[in-house]
Structure formats: structure tokens, C-alpha cells
């Protein structure tokens, strides 16, 4: 379970890049390409190892005009999934 105080960041060897040919953002990882949708990209762009999970939820909620409680489960689930796949790592408290 991911704590609210965790500070996720892109794992070594992972970077986001704009794919001009397809007009989309792409996550480049070892032997893997992930095309995140807009909602996922809004989360990923904030995974800089400085913002906490709680801050990421709050910012994304504000951007979408939603309450943090409405988005928190989905964002936690996404972050845990990305951590399990080695896209994100926990930058620590």
C-alpha cells in the first residue's frame, strides 16, 4: 500500500517524451513503451520525487475541478500499478 507521504519519481531508465509522429506523450522504459492517456499523464508529470502522493492527488483534483476524495483511489491504483511495473520508484519521505 502506497502511503500519502511517498514521493514517487520515474525509475532509472524511464523518461517521458513527446512522440511527434503520433502526437502523444510516451513513457520510454527498458524494452517497453507506454502511451498514457491524458489523465495518467497529468499524474506522471507530477511524479518528480519532490511532490508527495497527497500533493499529487490535490493538484490533479484541482486541475480537473474535482474533490481529492473523488480521485484518490484511482490515482493510488495507477501509482501502485506503475510502481509494480518498475515505471515509478518511491523517492522516499
Amino acid at each position, binding site marked *: 500500500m502506497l502511503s500519502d507521504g511517498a514521493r514517487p519519481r520515474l525509475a532509472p531508465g524511464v523518461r517521458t517524451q513527446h512522440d511527434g509522429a*503520433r502526437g502523444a506523450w510516451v513513457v520510454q522504459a*527498458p*524494452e517497453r513503451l507506454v502511451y498514457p492517456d491524458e489523465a495518467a499523464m497529468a499524474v506522471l508529470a507530477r511524479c518528480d520525487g519532490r511532490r508527495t502522493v497527497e500533493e499529487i492527488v490535490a493538484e490533479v483534483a484541482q486541475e480537473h475541478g474535482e474533490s481529492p476524495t473523488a480521485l484518490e483511489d484511482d490515482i493510488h491504483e495507477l501509482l501502485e500499478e506503475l510502481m509494480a511495473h518498475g515505471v515509478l520508484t518511491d523517492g522516499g519521505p
Partner: protein
Amino acid sequence: MALLAELTHRCPLACPYCSNPLELTRASAELETADWLRIFREAAALGAMQVHLSGGEPLARADIVDLVAGAHEAGLYTNLITAAVTLSPGRLDALASAGLDHVQISLQDADAAGADRIAGLAGAHARKLRAAEMVRSRGLALTLNVVVHRHNLDRIEELIELGVASGAGRMEIAHAQYHGWGLANRAALLPRADQVRRAVSVVGAAAARLRGRMAIDHVLPDHFAARPKACMGGWARRFFVVSPQGRAMPCHAADTIPGLAFPDLRRTPVAEAWQEAEAFRRFRGTGWMPEPCRGCERREVDWGGCRCQALALTGDAAATDPACALSPQHHRMAEAVGDATVDAFRPRRF
């Protein structure tokens, strides 16, 4: 599309399952730096996102730092697939500065004696572990890859432990593929069914236990499967392979298939090779398929399996991959396992 750049066939190791062809290209016939840089730019313009710099040993190229820099400038994610026995700290620093994204180091076994025997080089294993530590300590992404076969499959736990201890973010455990040198040494390399069953369960348990800490990609062996793999993700769908002398191929073993003319990238642009060359169109999609592939609901899942394996085992590159239980030639896979009773293998040599 991903670009697999086989920069050279030169290599300090002599692994008996090497995917390079039996007839290796000499250094004098290799592409020049400028050729590779143009290929990187053209592939990126065509939509390629990643380049796998492989060989042979890519570090055998004196211009490897320039090649990484050029690929990076072209916008490609750069993956160095190396034996790493010749990787020095200074070279690694230069590669990292040039924009190298990821390093993949091969291990041959869990202990030095077994590993050095397979690699055909004394001291190789220890040097690889030191190189892995160099990569990790610089914060670069590290994958360890192990080709598994009868001689190392029983030490799969130890291999995974070695991966964890090295700090690798990812480990690739791939059963040997029987093309090129692997096919020549098949009788000495194919594992027993009980070894494979045990390994599948050990790797599955380890992958679950290490979830979030180290990812494990497990490439299963065709000889014990009921359905084929989507070899290369389907012929000419996801990979563009370039041989050391600049021949464009849909897969690294494609030149075993007679009658296919592979474009020479010294003269042919990447886009023309990818889109128009007959060798790329020959088995692309589903139109070429015979039955039982043509009417199979998995035809766009496995794309008919591996053309080179179909050729090697049935004599016909356009046949259904015999790894499929629906192939009339499926029994040949089991026969190969039954024939695998030889212990001595033939090291890869020029």
C-alpha cells in the same frame, strides 16, 4: 517500431547459443559511423522510439560513444546490450554523458565456473558483476539477461538472487532460441521437460515475490509449448533489424530463409526498406498464412509464430510454426527434445 542495431559480430565471448549467423561478418565489412547515424535518424523519422545496440559485442565498436550520442540526438531511447567484460569506468561515463538510457548485461550462469565455461572466457563472470556494479552505482538503469538451457536451468534461484543482489531493476530470463549457433548446438542445449516445469514455477514465484522491486520477464521455451510465440511481435510489425554490414531484416535470423533479398541500407533508405522491400512484405500480416493459421482465432495474436523455426524444422518458411500443437509437424519439437542427449557444444567462433 524498434530498431535492433547489430553493430558488429565481434565478441570476446563464445556462447554456443549465439543468435548471430554461423557465417560471421568481419570487421572490415561493417558499416561506417556515418551510415549508422543516418540509419538512426531515418528510423526515428519513420516512428522508431527505441534502439537496441547489440552485436556481437557493441563495445567492440571504437565509435560506440558517437553512436549512442547520435541515436540519442535522433530522439531514440538507447539500450546497450552488452557482455560488459570490456566495459571500463571511463567508457561507461562517456556513454552516460552521450545519453545512454539503459544497460543490459548478459550473465551465463550463477557461478563463475559454469558461466566462464559457457562464455568461453576465463574471468568473464567476475568482470560482468563488476560492470553491473559500475552501472548501478552511476544510477543508470540495469537489466541482467540470462539465456537459459540445460546446463544452467537448475540454478535459476541462484541466478535470480544474483539479479537482486546486483540491484538490477529488471531481469530477463529467456530460454535459448534454436537458430544460428543455437540450432547447431541444439542437442547439447535443449533442457529436459522436468527442468523446464520446475523453472517456470520458480520464476513465477520469484516474479510475484519481487513485484515492485525487480521486474522479471520470462521468455518460455517453444519446445514445451502448445502455441507459438508472436516471434518478433509478428514479422516486420515491430522490429527493424540491421546487420553489421547494413542489411535490413525483419528478424536477426531471417537470412537463414532462402529466396529473400534483404535491402542494403548503404543504398536503400530505411523507409523504403520497411515499407516496400519484398523481404519485409513476404510474411507481414496474415495474407501469407496457410491453414491452420489462416482460420485460427489466434492469427493476430501469434502471427503464425516463427518463420525461421518453421524453416528449420519443416523445410518450409511459410509453414505453421511447429511449436503450435495444431501444426501437422508439431511432433518434431518433441523429437528434438528426445534427441538432446549430447553434452559437448561447439563454441561460437569466426
